[in-house]
């Protein structure tokens, strides 16, 4: 194992210290083995590696869009040391066999931890529970289950799933979307969708499911996680549920913290995403919800698609955006530069909180004895997003050409340097 002596790195509160890494862990200086590599981190900030609870890796099945390896590299470039593989692959990750395959691919590549999320229902069909306990007891140790891309719409199936995962302290991550209210929907329903002639996706389709599910979670006293909240009404429902003591957590994506539905006026499918971009008021409510803790975490919903799936008419295009490599910078711009959060608070929402929800014990903190999963960031520098230079195999970023704050300069996973920014 390599050992490192990192000198002069600031923590998220701005206090500079030295950090020592040996045998994959943070250690005291005295424990550092001889021949440590010196890294001068003066001016850089050391942050615990980010943890994404919502990532589409596309392998197995759509290796033309992304693989476990390319997603891992994109993650490391974005400062992430753990990602969570959503189960909507081909085949669907609804058995111990598939989740173990994905988990092992992540281990094999060793760039970041890849924690599979299991499907709630067989084939994400919404009818029959998948073998949740088998996935939990597999090598992958799955704790989060989701039919992401599809809503668990049947209230009885949802209730049973919420109850069942209590066996192993699991959590159901719900993609809140009433399928009947969103049939063929293309973008947020409102003035813009009406004008553009694109079928509307009403906020109530998301909010009605959130409302139902927090009540179900309350009734059976289970853990519920709401994926990618996008509406002001959804934030309000979760806020009041938390006040009642319901065990609900929630995530927001970087793109929903910054972008709005008027971008669809270009008819450029790079802005087509599920759930859709909403209004300015929604963006403001999401930011406030993330600030006051109603929304616990930032999750990317990194959704790679090959070029041909976006280089076409809006209605024929795939939903989704890549996000691993821009997540920190976008969240920093939306939350820290606006003074809604301190850097420390933002990092909690990108690292500590998601690690807690997923029970990813090797992530989320920098302390002696902890696994050395961290990133070094230059907060005084900006960078320009260039889609063709992304590490992700797919280039469908809505942020192409934007100049963003915060440059990820190095990422370490289990004490190994897995990413280093080339330029400069």
């Amino acid at each position, binding site marked *: 194992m390599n050992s490192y002596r990192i000198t002069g790195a600031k923590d998220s509160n701005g206090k500079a210290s030295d950090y020592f890494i040996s045998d994959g862990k943070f250690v005291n200086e005295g424990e550092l083995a001889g021949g440590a590599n010196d890294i001068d981190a003066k001016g850089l900030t050391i942050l615990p590696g980010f943890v994404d609870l919502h990532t589409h890796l596309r392998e197995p099945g759509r290796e033309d869009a992304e693989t476990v390896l390319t997603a891992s590299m994109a993650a490391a470039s974005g400062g992430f040391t753990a990602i969570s593989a959503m189960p909507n692959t081909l085949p669907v990750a609804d058995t111990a066999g598939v989740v173990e395959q994905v988990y092992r691919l992540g281990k094999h590549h060793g760039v970041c931890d890849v924690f599979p999320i299991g499907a709630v229902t067989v084939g994400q069909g919404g009818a029959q529970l998948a073998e949740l306990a088998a996935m939990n007891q597999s090598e992958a140790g799955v704790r989060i289950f989701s039919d992401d891309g599809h809503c668990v719409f049947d209230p009885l199936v949802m209730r049973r799933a919420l109850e069942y995962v209590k066996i192993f302290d699991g959590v159901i991550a719900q993609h809140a979307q009433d399928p009947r209210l969103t049939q063929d929907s*293309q973008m947020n*329903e*409102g*003035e*813009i*969708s*009406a*004008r*553009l*002639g*694109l*079928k*509307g996706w*009403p906020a109530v389709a998301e909010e009605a499911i959130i409302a139902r599910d927090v009540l179900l979670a309350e009734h059976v006293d289970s853990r519920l996680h709401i994926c990618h909240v996008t509406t002001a009404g959804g934030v309000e429902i979760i806020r009041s549920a938390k006040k009642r003591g319901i065990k609900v957590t929630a995530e927001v994506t970087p793109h929903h913290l910054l972008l709005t539905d008027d971008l669809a006026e*270009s*008819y450029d499918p790079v802005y087509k995403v599920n759930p859709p971009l909403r209004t300015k008021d929604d963006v403001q409510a999401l930011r406030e919800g993330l600030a006051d803790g109603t929304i616990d975490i930032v999750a990317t919903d990194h959704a790679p698609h090959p070029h*041909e*799936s976006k*280089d*076409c*008419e*809006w*209605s*024929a*295009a795939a939903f989704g955006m890549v996000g691993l490599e821009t997540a920190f910078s976008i969240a920093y711009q939306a939350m820290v530069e606006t003074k809604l959060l301190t850097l420390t608070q933002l990092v909690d929402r990108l690292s500590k909180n998601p690690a807690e929800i997923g029970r990813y014990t090797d992530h989320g903190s920098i302390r002696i004895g902890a696994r050395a999963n961290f990133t070094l960031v230059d907060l005084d520098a900006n960078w320009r997003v260039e889609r063709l230079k992304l590490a992700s195999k797919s280039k469908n970023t809505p942020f192409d050409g934007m100049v963003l704050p915060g440059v990820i300069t190095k990422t370490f996973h289990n004490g190994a340097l897995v990413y280093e920014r080339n330029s400069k």
Partner: protein
Amino acid sequence: MKHLLSIADLSRDEAIEVLDTAAELARLSEGTVKKFPTLRGRTVVNLFFEDSTRTRISFEAAAKRLSADVINFAAKGSSVSKGESLKDTALTLQAMGADAVVIRHGASGAAHQLAKQEWMKGVVINAGDGTHEHPTQALLDAFTIRRHLKENQGDLSGVKVGIIGDILHSRVARSNILLLKKLGAEVVLIAPPTLIPVGVAKWGVDVSYSLDDQIKSLDVVMALRVQKERMNDLYFPTEREYARGYGLTSERMKQMKTKSIVMHPGPMNRGLEISAESADSQRSVIVEQVANGVSVRMAVLYLTLGGATFKELASSGESL
């Protein structure tokens, strides 16, 4: 005018220029001159991904009267439902040297993408994209209204237009609302609430759920085609219930003002949104709409491809 993608891209003056040019072309066509040499050697492609008899024929007639070469490209069928084919078709047309592409497509924004993605360099004219817009239909409707109610001159101020029916899914309605407002007309949308888009409050038009309340005050009654399949999506309970509430029946027609006119973009469901008697009445200008369509589309092709003013056109026509 580089392209014609949306009525929103036209200024008021540009819209009136189209109408004036169309009026001049119509006037000249009534004489001995049936064909103008203006677009000789230019190629206009009719690229129709959806069935449409009247719009395609109208554009074809317009292009031919301006002496353009016309290629009809009917790309219907399952192979075009996949996105890539629009791009590939555009690249093909570009390679063939099309000067203008008239596109009808089932996806909202298809014409925009053709023009903006740099798939091709020629002029793009939107002949209907999904449920977004159908700008030449709105122009010919405005032309027809102006001819009947404004002596073929200026704008449409003082005219009250009722657009009745499936506003939610109608590209004709969207283009008409934009253009009628631009030209100073008063617009009221008349439909059951299920067929009025959420967000319509920002469109600057009135909305009514009762045709009976409005019929006496309208100068123009514009009935939209209502697809019977909408019933299956619960937009209204039955065809008969729709016809009772929103159909332009003979009884309702009798309540219209003396000079008011009846319009329909076609094709009509006689007996559903319009009774046969209304469609064939003295008030109906539905057939004239079709004829005016050719003049308006000639004007659009001329102004996008020709670039000269219509006065120059008039002199070239008369010199034949």
